């Protein structure tokens, strides 16, 4: 997030697109409700009717995968009506003329054809976001998990910059991160192309700095992303995989392809707190301690680095992940010796400018938001205050493109995937929790009453959902949350694994994120 969670409640307008915030980030949704109480206007754009749609001043259901057209259509109207932040555009951005020209084609009528959103609704949402400042823009995987994910994010940034909403309190571009430490994993260099703090492995200075600190010459060739690793396994080039705290058999697109590829590995090491679907196929399973059983830090979605404290001893003979990694590295001939996570954190802050001013003592209970470059720096509530990281904010021309799959005669439905309020990712943690399992014990497929009627399907009937990749079964949940012609599947359940259906070929060319949010599918009643 460019801005902070607490700032949301002081926004004058909140635009939520591709985030089911009240189900997936309830304590962020709380700030949205608080903002509403203080008089903010709420715009919700989501292909489903989510809970927040009910509270919105304008709620629209854009067709799955049509976000760029919707956002460009809003910008078209903002410029047409002169609602853009002219001074901000002149002083803080570049590329405006090219963007303006590219937006001319996104007339309300053309946008209606692509997205299904009426010109009246488009006008109202453009006016609210264009005229009520500051405007906070919130999004999540509904924007990113597309073959055009990077384009979607660029269109969002264009909209926020055109209206002068980046670099101001209670405004900003705010991706809500799904997993507890996904921000931290990125910050810490858990990516193939960067060291900590996004220092590129290809940069001679960064490479020299880390080579010296770690006492080894380091490769300056960017590594493989997960989808490319799967391809490399299939091609026999990647022979060993060490998986920590992940369950790719359920989280990666195209499960059958992955299962097939993983059999080709010479060695699979899995480190986890449960014997997950992936761990069951491993050669070595390393038993890890849970978060309540160790010290360390997480960095949340607003860049706040927070300390965990050890509450109890690790279960059975499990060990904290940091200790396991140290033991494995030492056995490999690269000794890693730390007495505690605090020592590791000191090494991190020494090598990472955005964390340089942080220490366990300073973090306390409230944590500190990066960038925090010095020990007397208070941390940063919102980014890009007076200038962008690159100087001027770049407005990118982004054209609408169809998703990789659109419904056809054989697969007439749109299929999308997402989360439920009681569960988390592949369900390994929440489904063993008695209270959460009681709340939502099974998966389902959401289907509109019109489609259910045509198929003679009643609530709870088993349906067979198939795509070009495979087929799964799930009980029907008849709901107006999905529009006619759309199906929704939650991702948490190994017994109806959505990643049998989803497409591992449709990736964003830059971010390599799979298109989990749009696919074509067929649905039939299961005949026993």
């Amino acid at each position: 997030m460019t801005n902070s969670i607490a700032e949301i409640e002081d926004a004058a307008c909140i635009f939520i697109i591709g985030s089911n915030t009240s189900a997936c980030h309830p304590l962020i949704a709380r700030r949205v409700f608080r903002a509403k109480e203080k008089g903010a206007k709420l715009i919700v754009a989501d292909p489903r009717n989510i809970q927040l749609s009910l509270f919105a001043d304008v709620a629209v259901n854009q067709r799955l995968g049509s976000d760029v057209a919707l956002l460009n259509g809003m910008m078209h109207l903002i410029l047409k009506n002169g609602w853009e932040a002219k001074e901000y555009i002149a002083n803080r951005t570049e590329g405006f003329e090219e963007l303006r020209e590219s937006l001319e084609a996104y007339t309300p009528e053309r946008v209606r054809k692509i997205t299904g959103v009426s010109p009246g609704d488009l006008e109202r949402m453009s006016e609210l976001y264009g005229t009520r400042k500051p405007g906070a823009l919130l999004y999540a995987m509904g924007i990113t998990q597309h073959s055009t994910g990077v384009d979607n994010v660029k269109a969002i940034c264009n909209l926020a910059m055109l209206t002068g909403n980046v670099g101001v309190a209670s405004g900003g571009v705010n991706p809500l991160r799904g997993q507890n430490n996904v921000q931290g994993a990125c910050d810490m260099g858990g990516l193939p192309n960067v060291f900590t703090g996004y220092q590129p492995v290809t940069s001679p200075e960064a490479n020299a700095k880390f080579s010296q600190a770690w006492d080894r010459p380091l490769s300056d060739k960017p590594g493989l992303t997960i989808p490319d690793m799967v391809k490399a396994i299939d091609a026999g080039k990647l022979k060993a995989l060490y998986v920590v705290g992940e369950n790719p058999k359920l989280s990666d697109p195209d499960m059958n392809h992955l299962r097939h590829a993983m059999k080709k590995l010479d060695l699979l090491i899995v480190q986890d707190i449960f014997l997950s679907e992936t761990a069951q196929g491993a050669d070595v399973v390393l038993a890890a301690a849970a978060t309540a059983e160790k010290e360390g830090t997480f960095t949340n979605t607003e860049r706040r680095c927070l300390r965990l404290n050890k509450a109890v001893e690790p279960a059975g003979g499990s060990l904290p992940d940091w200790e396991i990694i140290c033991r494995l590295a030492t056995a490999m001939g690269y000794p890693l010796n730390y007495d505690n996570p605090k020592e590791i954190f000191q090494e991190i802050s020494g090598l990472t400018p955005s964390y340089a001013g942080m220490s366990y003592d300073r973090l306390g209970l409230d944590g500190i938001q990066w960038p925090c470059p010095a020990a007397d720096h208070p941390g940063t509530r919102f980014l890009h205050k007076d200038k962008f990281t690159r100087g001027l904010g770049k407005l990118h021309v982004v054209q609408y493109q169809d998703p990789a799959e659109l419904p056809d005669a054989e697969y007439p439905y749109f299929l999308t995937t997402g989360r439920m309020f009681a569960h988390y990712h592949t369900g390994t943690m929440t489904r063993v929790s008695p209270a959460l399992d009681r709340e939502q014990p099974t998966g389902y497929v959401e289907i509109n009453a019109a489609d259910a009627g045509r198929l003679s399907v009643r609530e709870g009937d088993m349906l067979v959902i198939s795509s070009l990749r495979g087929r799964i079964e799930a009980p029907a949940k008849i709901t107006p949350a999905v529009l006619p012609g759309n199906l929704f599947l939650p991702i948490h359940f190994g017994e109806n694994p959505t990643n049998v259906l989803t497409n591992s070929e449709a990736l964003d060319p830059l971010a390599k994120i799979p298109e989990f949010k749009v696919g074509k599918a067929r649905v039939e009643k299961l005949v026993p």
Partner: protein
Amino acid sequence: MYKLVPSVCSYCGTGCGVLFEVLDGRILGTLPLKTHPVNEGKLCIKGWNLHEYVNSFMRLQAPRVRINGRLHQVTWDRAIQFAADRLKKVIAEHGPDSVGVLASAKITNEENYLLQKFARAAVGTNNVDHCARL
């Protein structure tokens, strides 16, 4: 002995402050931290039940190694040596870029830091990624 231990919820990226209620070395419950800047004394249904997965009987208790097709519990020394020997063999035969490491959005910063250090310095590859995209 009863104690309250402040920590952070691990169920999403919001980062709510929690208090673990601990009695005699077992977590009894999870409470919201009233003074925390993120959640100000509130939690969602997942947060209130955060301790339940920690206490689950399904938790792995010891490392396991596949012997003759089946996973068997072994000592830590044996599991680590087995993993290290096999990794070294793969590196010797196919080079460091034949190894991939999946870091995690569910473990700590310190652990992610060590994992990429492990991949880049101990193995010698930049093949390290995590499920930010998934």
